[in-house]
């Protein structure tokens, strides 16, 4: 257990540094983009005068390092600042969207992770049979299609033809949990199609890898049933790589779903990030970027911790 705590402590400190560096990279990145918030919000209707007035109002005429410093100072006091484009507090813009993003990611994960693991075990059990190949072909086909294509197929089938699910996944606070789940089922299924293949293939490969080990051979020689070998001996020992792949895919579900959000008109963090980058709304870009970065860091840390916990050797050894 000491190992785990040490790891968490070290990694958390390193994460702080990572996040700080990321915030600088994001800031420079947005600064390098042509145009600023005044020009992009006014768009075709911008004149030099109005742009100037807009810039002064937002203090964009100050040099970049001064603005970054001011932002960092506010952040250290827990203040994410306000959106440059419409003056709303960033925390207010992000809070409920992040909850929506997590809800959709959670739903997709609840379907995708058990499905991928079960399919992976079955594929390993029936490896190199027709059944194994079918699973691989189907899941790999899904991952090969662009997300929006799968989304449109699902909409055409379930929303337009059968009319059993809504084509738009609009959710709001007044809806009960059941209604929310019903609303996000199609986008969650879309995401499931996208992430299952990766996790399934990894599970299959990891189990097959373990199956070649001597102790599995011993179990076989002793006459243990194959299903029991896979469930109780092979799978627990192959968890470590599987956990890492699951963590990567969960991170993807949190940060990479903007296309699905647009197609299903789902108000999540992705659309907010895209809109704010397009409008050069730096405080919002910073905050969303940092949340995404934290999600990645957190999920990777969790993966490492879990890998340690499931592996007695890592759990016990002294560093």
């Amino acid at each position, binding site marked *: 257990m000491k190992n785990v705590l040490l790891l968490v402590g070290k990694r958390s400190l390193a994460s702080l540094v990572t996040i700080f560096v990321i915030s600088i990279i994001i800031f420079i990145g947005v600064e390098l*983009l*042509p*145009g600023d918030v*005044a*020009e*992009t*919000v*006014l*768009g*075709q*209707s*911008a*004149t*030099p*005068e*109005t*742009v100037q*007035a*807009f810039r*002064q*109002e937002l203090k964009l005429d100050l040099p970049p390092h001064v603005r970054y410093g001011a932002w960092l100072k506010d952040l250290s006091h827990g203040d994410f600042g306000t*959106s440059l*484009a*419409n*003056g*709303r507090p960033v925390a207010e*813009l992000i809070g409920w969207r992040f909850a929506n993003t997590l809800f959709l990611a959670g739903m997709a994960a609840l379907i995708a992770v058990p499905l991928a693991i079960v399919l992976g075990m079955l594929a390993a059990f029936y490896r190199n049979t027709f059944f194994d190949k079918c699973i691989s072909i189907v899941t790999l086909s899904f991952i090969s299609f662009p997300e929006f294509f799968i989304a*449109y197929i699902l*909409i055409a089938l379930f*929303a*337009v033809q059968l*009319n059993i699910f*809504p*084509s*738009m996944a*609009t959710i*709001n606070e007044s809806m009960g949990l059941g209604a929310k789940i019903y609303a996000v089922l199609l986008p969650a299924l879309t995401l499931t199609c996208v992430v299952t293949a990766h996790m399934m293939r990894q599970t299959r490969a990891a189990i097959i890898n373990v199956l070649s080990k001597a102790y599995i051979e011993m179990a076989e020689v002793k006459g243990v049933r194959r299903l029991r070998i896979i469930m109780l001996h092979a799978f627990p020992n192959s968890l470590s790589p599987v956990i890492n792949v699951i963590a990567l895919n969960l991170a993807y579900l949190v940060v990479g779903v903007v296309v699905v959000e*647009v*197609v*299903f*008109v789902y*108000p999540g963090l992705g*659309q*907010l990030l895209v*809109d*704010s980058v*397009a*409008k050069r*709304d730096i405080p*919002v870009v910073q905050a969303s970027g940092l949340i995404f970065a934290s999600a990645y860091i957190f999920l990777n840390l969790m993966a490492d911790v879990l890998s340690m916990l499931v592996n007695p050797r890592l759990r016990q050894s002294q560093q």
Partner: protein
Amino acid sequence: MSSLAALLELFEQKKISRREFLNRTAALGLMATVSPALFPGSAEAGGPKSGGRLIMGLTGGSTTDSMNPATLTSNMNQNLNWQIRNNLVEIDHNFDPIPELAESWESTPDAKVWRFKLRKGVEFHNGKTMTAEDVVYSINHHRGEKSKSGAKGYLKAIENIKADGQYEVVFTLSGGSADFPFILGDYHLSICPAGTQGQEWEKGIGTGAYVLESWEPGVRAFATRNPNYWKEGRGHFDEVETLSIVDTNARTNALKTGQINYMDRVELKTVHLMKRMPGVNVTATTGTAHYTIPMLVDRSPYNDNNVRTALKLAIDREELLKQVLRGYGEIGNDHPIAPVNRYFNDDLEQRRSDPDQAKFYMKKAGMLDHTFNLHAADAAFAGAVDAAVMIQEQAKKAGIKINVVRDPDDGYWSNVWMKKEWCMCYWGGRPTEDMMFSVAYANGAPWNDTNWNNKRFNELLVAARAELDSTKRGKMYAEMQEICRNDSGTVVPMYNQMVEASSDKLAHGSISGHMAVDGMRNAERWWFK
């Protein structure tokens, strides 16, 4: 008001009859303040009925949108603006200015001083009565050095605004402007309570038909009927829900499955399929919106009118209209005045594709070997890149070489438009000739996207602006359209129609071409059958 509230309560509890309620409220002189929603059957047969929830799926919404009238940049917040607010002047579907919050107006004979009489007894949603002070504040919000308003340019001519008593406002202009009331019909210039600033704009307090209940930029707005609405025969829905649906397929599916009952910007590639959908009506309205291809005439070789004329002649407008707009539009004649505008010049010869003539002019300019860079991105308008490639092919027939430069959508208006010598562009058009010419063709105008400077044209513009005699103005504008067609740096290949779709349960009167979505006032003008 307490006696009205008491009567309402009695009526709702069915303790008094509808007739008795009407008699007693009429006796109180309160009828105008009673919501028509109480009497669902009271509308005239065939006339508008009230009730229901209008659910719109609109384009252009962004999480960065604001309800500050200075920066209303998308279909979504422009539409929402007129759900909840009013202007002094409304522009109707005939492109005539009609009284809105102003009851009437008059000007001095030189059209320099304008006096607007305000409607009395109009209340904002917060209960404050609208007076001249609010009007002065709302218009001044778009003026002055610190203003970031998109309407700043229109209001340059105003020298002074002052309130004369509580219900009159006097505008003094630096030069005569016969169309001044039109300017006050611009969507930016809606009237808000004096003192509104910062985050208060987002509350959307106005005098409009609906009261804003919730507003999340780029996602959703929800408004309910204003029980005190002052305008007769408008604002029929109980509730209006406005959804930002950026993706065309998502809008189409939502309409088809009944999740929304109105959508803007129908996909032209599939509109023929949509027309076959049961329960869906497609409307196509010609307005002032047009596509343009501006050249910077102060740069070589576009400073030679032979080059400009050759390029204008090389373009096959009919083909562009057919391919890019699938016929949903009309061909343009290289000036920005639309057939729906009041002084459109019918007698002007329509310019058509003529490769021989184009070659002749290009040869005269000695530019047949030159390769013209045409900058394009779909940010200009949907299909702009396709249109540019088609123009490249069309020009080959005249032996003119065009190179299509694809630019990123991101930042197109700040980095390409008005910076590159020749590029694709889009104009929403303006309700009057004066506004359109002043904003993009007058010498020195900030959005003169060709840097064009024609002496005769600029003289006529000023003269026509102050001319109150309609016939004389008509002649001047006709001549200006001709000058523009023959000399300016803009190619106007076509006017695009605004194609929208709605549930067939919705009914409406004549649709305005002033702006998209029935002049952005469908929530106020439409009703459920």
